[in-house]
């Protein structure tokens, strides 16, 4: 199973260009889609989940045309939307049973088995009789995961799944995903770099509707080795630094500003070489130091 996205573009009726000529090849395994908020991740995810159509382009899952064979795609699809609700007056078990039936498990016994396993796996077994209206955000998210996992999906699309989870839940969930990634296409969209670095064998960085970089995280980090430099300074020095060097990110550390600079050679005194992490890859791509924005610089950004 291989997901191939070709030249997808989408413009909303209000004029917002959500996606511009996006192409991606996604092999089985975990694939991370990384990008800031509003980058077009959710639009792309919904297209893969058969809920939205591009203006142009095509999407294929193996032999299936995702855009015209929605029914077929849905049979192998698990989808966890970024935001969703529940029927408040129904218990988790009841609603999951309902979903199991919708996912094509008509036999009662089989359904019960599957539902039990998923409820246990998402740690909702103890509270399965509770009405969903009383669930906390994390519980509800786990319920959504259970729904997405129903029916052993070959294509799992999870949109910002870790947003509502506490650290422990997040770990559990990511473990679950990586297990699934062993024989399915799992597409994870996130704006949290760690989610990708911990899990994904491949990733893409998307911004303003365009793919900036498509890479393997490890390889991308290796490629940056020796090019990331760090300097600690006062805030007042930053503007000067930005003028002279390609600052890709800044953060605060104990009241001092830490700037990271992308440079092929040592930028000078006061800089120390650091081991690049995925965050550097992300910011370097966003800043146009690597990836497509580097290869084909765009006209001045509009914002």
């Amino acid at each position, binding site marked *: 199973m291989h997901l191939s996205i070709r030249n997808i573009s989408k413009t909303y009726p209000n004029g917002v260009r959500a996606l511009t000529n996006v192409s991606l090849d996604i092999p089985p395994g975990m694939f991370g889609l990384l990008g800031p908020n509003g980058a077009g991740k959710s639009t792309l995810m*919904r297209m893969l989940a*058969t*809920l939205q159509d591009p203006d142009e382009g095509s999407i294929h899952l193996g032999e299936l045309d995702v855009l015209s064979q929605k*029914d077929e795609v849905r*049979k192998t699809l698990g989808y966890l939307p970024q935001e969703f609700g*529940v029927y408040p007056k129904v218990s988790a078990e009841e609603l999951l049973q*309902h979903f199991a039936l919708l996912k094509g498990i008509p036999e009662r016994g089989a359904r019960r088995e599957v539902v039990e*396993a*998923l409820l246990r796996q998402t740690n909702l077994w103890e509270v399965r009789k509770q009405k969903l209206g009383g669930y906390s955000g994390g519980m509800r998210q786990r319920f959504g995961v259970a729904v997405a996992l129903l029916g052993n999906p070959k294509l799992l699309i999870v949109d910002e799944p870790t947003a509502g989870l506490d650290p422990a839940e997040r770990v559990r969930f990511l473990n679950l995903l990586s297990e699934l990634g062993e024989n399915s296409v799992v597409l994870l969209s996130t704006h949290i770099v760690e989610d990708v670095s911990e899990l994904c064998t491949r990733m893409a960085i998307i911004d303003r509707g365009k793919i900036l970089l498509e890479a393997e995280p490890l390889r991308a980090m290796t490629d940056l080795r020796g090019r990331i430099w760090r300097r600690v300074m006062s805030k007042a020095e930053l503007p000067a630094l930005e003028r002279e060097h390609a600052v890709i990110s800044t953060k605060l550390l104990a009241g001092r500003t830490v700037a990271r600079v992308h440079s092929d050679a040592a930028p000078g005194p006061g800089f120390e070489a650091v081991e690049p992490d995925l965050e550097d890859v992300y910011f370097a791509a966003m800043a146009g130091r690597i990836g497509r924005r580097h290869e084909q610089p765009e006209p001045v950004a509009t914002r």
Partner: protein
Amino acid sequence: MTLLGVFRFELAYQLRRPWPWLCMAVLAVFAFVNTRVAVVPATLPQDFILNSPFIIAVVSVFSCQIWLLIAPAVAGEAAARDVYTRMYPLTYTSPVSKAEYLGGRFLAAFVLNALILLAVQVGSLLAAHAPGVDPEIIGPFRPAAYLAAYGLIALPNAFIATAVQFSIALLSGRPMASYAGSMGLFFFSYPVTVVLYFSGVQKLALLADPIGVMAIMNEMMSNWTIVEKNVRMFTLEGPMLLNRAIWVGIALLTLALMYVRFRFAHRPAQRARATDVFRRLRGRFAVRVPMPDTAPARIAISVPQVRRSFGLTTGFRQAVSVARSSFWMIAKSPPGLFLLAVFPMFVVLVLHVESEMWGIQMLPRTGYILTKHVTAALTYFADYRVIVPLLIVYFAGELVWRERDARISENIDATPVSEWVFVLGKFLGLGLVLAAFMVSLTAAGMLAQTLMGYHDFQVGLYLKILFGLQLPEYLLFAVLVLLVHALVDQKHMAMLAALVVYFLIVFSSVIGVDHKLLVYGSSPGWFFTDMRGFGRSIGPWLMFKLYWAAWALLLAVAATLLWVRGREPAFRSRVNIARLRFTRGTARAAAVAVALIGTLGGFIFYNTNVLNEYITDDESIERRADYERRYGQYEGIPQPVRVGTNLRIEIHPDRGAATIHGSYRLLNRSTVAIDSVHLEPAFYVDTRVSFDRAFRPAVTDARLGHDIYALEEPLQPGDSLTLRFDVIFKPRGFTNSGARSSGAGTSILENGTYFTSGALPVIGYQPLRELWSADDRRKHGLPRQVTLPPPGDIDPSVAANAPATFEAIIGTDENQVAVAPGELRRTWSEAGRRYFHYGSDVPISGTDVFFSADYTVHRERWKDVDLQLFVHPGHATQRERVLRSARASLDYYSEQFGPYPYRFLQIIEQPGDFLGMGVDGSGVITGGEGFFLLNPEGAGFDAIFEIVAHEMGHQWWGMQLKPAFAEGGGVISESLAWYSAMQLVKTVKGREALRRFMSFMREPNPWPPIRTGLPLLRAMDPWANYRKGPYAFLALSEYVGEERVNGALRSLVETKVSSFATTLDMYRELQAVTPDSLKPLLHDLFEVNAWWTFDTRQATAVQTQAGAWRVTLEVEAHKVVGDSAGVERETPMTEWVEIGIFAGAGPGEVLGNPLYVQKHRIASGTQTITVTVPQEPARAGIDPYNLLDWEEGDNIEPVKIERRSAKESS
């Protein structure tokens, strides 16, 4: 200032939404149509001014009701959008006070609604001033009329409704809840009010209506004269003012309550929604289990691999699951509970109220209560049942939007489920709700029957009628509204669209769409009565329903194709998606639907338009106009009159066929020779005619139904000829309204055949076929016609329609009894059929009626009169009461008003579930099946006796004395018939029985008092004919003397035996017997509209030393005289009025033994009267029998006994 900011933002926000504008458009169109063509003008018999304040006010109040249903979104959005969109954490925490936030939002909603309602006045204005209207019916433009309607009707309604909608939406956090609030108000405004009104608490009913429809309509419709309706300005007064004050008060209270309850607080909106009644109840008692929300160490659990399937079977199981969950969602919601529990309870109440007539309970037979009060066609909107389709619209919206409202739609849309599963599942869910509703109605019906002490439930009939006939009606509609909600991708717009679709269905005939092939879901009605069963009504009904079911299938396919899934709202992309969804299965379903529509539609069309003639209302009006234009010239020309009828009738109930061979003896009573006979055969039967002398057809006009036969040899004065005819009834398919009620159709049924001499040819031009509505006549360029001429305009020399001798041999199936007018001369069997020979040598008039059914027959003789009673076998419970009244009437009336001239009297149960009784012709009284279900018990009030007495009265007043077709005609038929019944009751049963009878007469149902009609001599309105007239005669008989008044009436019958009578003839007779001292009273009763009001302020008594009782009464008296413009003038009075003093009442009585009843001269104003009586008095008062003051109430007071004080005794 913040308030202003909140207000402005909300106003601007909603003005950018589409729904306020669409509501405006809908209302403007509604007001326009309503003013121009529709409901209101049709209810006015005479000419009206299109832009009179009355019409403007009535249109405004009706439009308010429509507005109430279509526009709740405005208040709902303003109140609950923040919670619904989950924006509230931002707004609630901003530095705005509760008062500013709520005030601004509420004001914005109110102002928006006020703006929307402005469209009503725009529509009214356009209706009067846009082109296409006759300038004759347009009065001067009076801005004050529009302002009054807007300011006094629309604005208070906007305030009241907005307050309720806003509060409910705010507290529940759901904009849609405002629709539920609206329906609650609507339920009060219509169903509750109407039921209260007809259950005898009119005053309460006028107050219970939040929209004021009843208060306004009642006040203006019945209390304003025609003149007033055209000119009088609308103001708030009386019950209208009180109604408005109360409801504005309730609205303010609601707002206050809402303000107190509302908090800027976190909304655990999903946790304990205000709508979840069960949960809240349970929450009161349940202890919440703490929830483990932390993740323990990871346990490896593998999800079992199970086989999945995606076939049709799975689809159906999925649909069932969707249906089950949809059902519970609706059933547990407050509107669902309302439908399934509250509404059926309301039906129990309705059944209780409605199955009483004049305080008498009817036998609550299952078929009767179901067809009369529980079931209704979708197009029926005249009472409480209208709430069901409205709830279906609401439920369909809730179901279609369920996933999106719960924000779970993306999860569900991505599952491998076909769209048809959702469509089918939700339809089944709604269907389950409706089926449960039918179960509730069954329970309600049985409960009502049990409460009335009736136990023959006929469960099978409940199932047939509710599940077989009513449920499909609602299910078809459910499919349509599901489609609308699926199609329109915005919830409020979808509600609006669905409601507009519903209104179009309801008002289809008003907007000129009559053919039931064109109005979704409609069909000819079915009927069910004990006698007829379902008759022939089911077949046509079923054909149409199947046809619409095929459409429903097509709609379901469309809903499947356009089902919203995912986020592609643009219509173009929805069409693209629909194209993808158009699989072979869908195509097959669509093809089946289209094929069925074609075949069934074709079959129906063949029946309605080919086998039978299909005429629209316009066409039939056109024909009546043509009829008058072409043949009106023959009105009143000399024609032979029928003096003898001879019929040979063969009825074949099983085949729905009949043949009549008949002949008329026609006599030339005029002074000239007649060379041609004008003959009008009945429509929808085959008629062949011939004369016993040479003739040739000169004109044969089947379209207008007028034939002219030229006689070779003219018929000389005094000469006669015989007309022979054959009339053949043959079943011929069905029409747009089902089996025809005339011709074959439903006239000849397996049991309960009924037809009249309307099926036989008539002689001469029939003026009654002319158009009568002023509007129609104007549109067709016909001269204006006075509805009825005043009694003085009637030419006394015009002879009444000559009665004719009658003879009929009528044959039917062996097991049935056939009835025709006359005494039964012979009955025999022949070739497996039964024959009956009826006849009357005394000429009879009126309509001849013919029956065949499995009747139970009772025959007896009163003197030489053959008294016959025919009733359905199960309906004979009250036979003796009917007969007793008939005998008593024959005795008393023939003694008082002259002999009963006929040799027979027939009382026949007519198939059909109506309640009334009536006189068809000489010697023939028919009552509906409903009448024979009346079940008075014991010695209580016996309406059967009174009603039969009234109809018997018509054998004198109407059959012998024939009213001219003129003003006041009703007084000499209806008033005299009731007066006769009153005298009979007084004579046979006594004064207390009369008093009880009168007190039922005074109930405003069915005829509320009309103070502004014409005086009795020219009376036209039903209240004058059926109520005021009898009261006046009764009063006169008490003042002048019963013998004198009855003698005058007897002499009237004698003098007018062969010509039409008017009120003036009657008045002359009355004047002749009235002494001069009472002439002023006679004048006040008949010549003008005089109203007396008497009030006993207090009555005290003290015992005299002699042991007698001295009673002192303080009484007040007034008399007003009203003119035709409704202006009432107080007129000084000095009248003889009865003063009555009564002993304590026995059980079941109101007044005890009269101790003293004498007339005193009473003047206007307050006066004191002292009377001494021998016994201790209990009650005393002025006009105790309500002879002149026709409103019961304050005439009689309990007597206060005073201990004698020392001073007084000295």
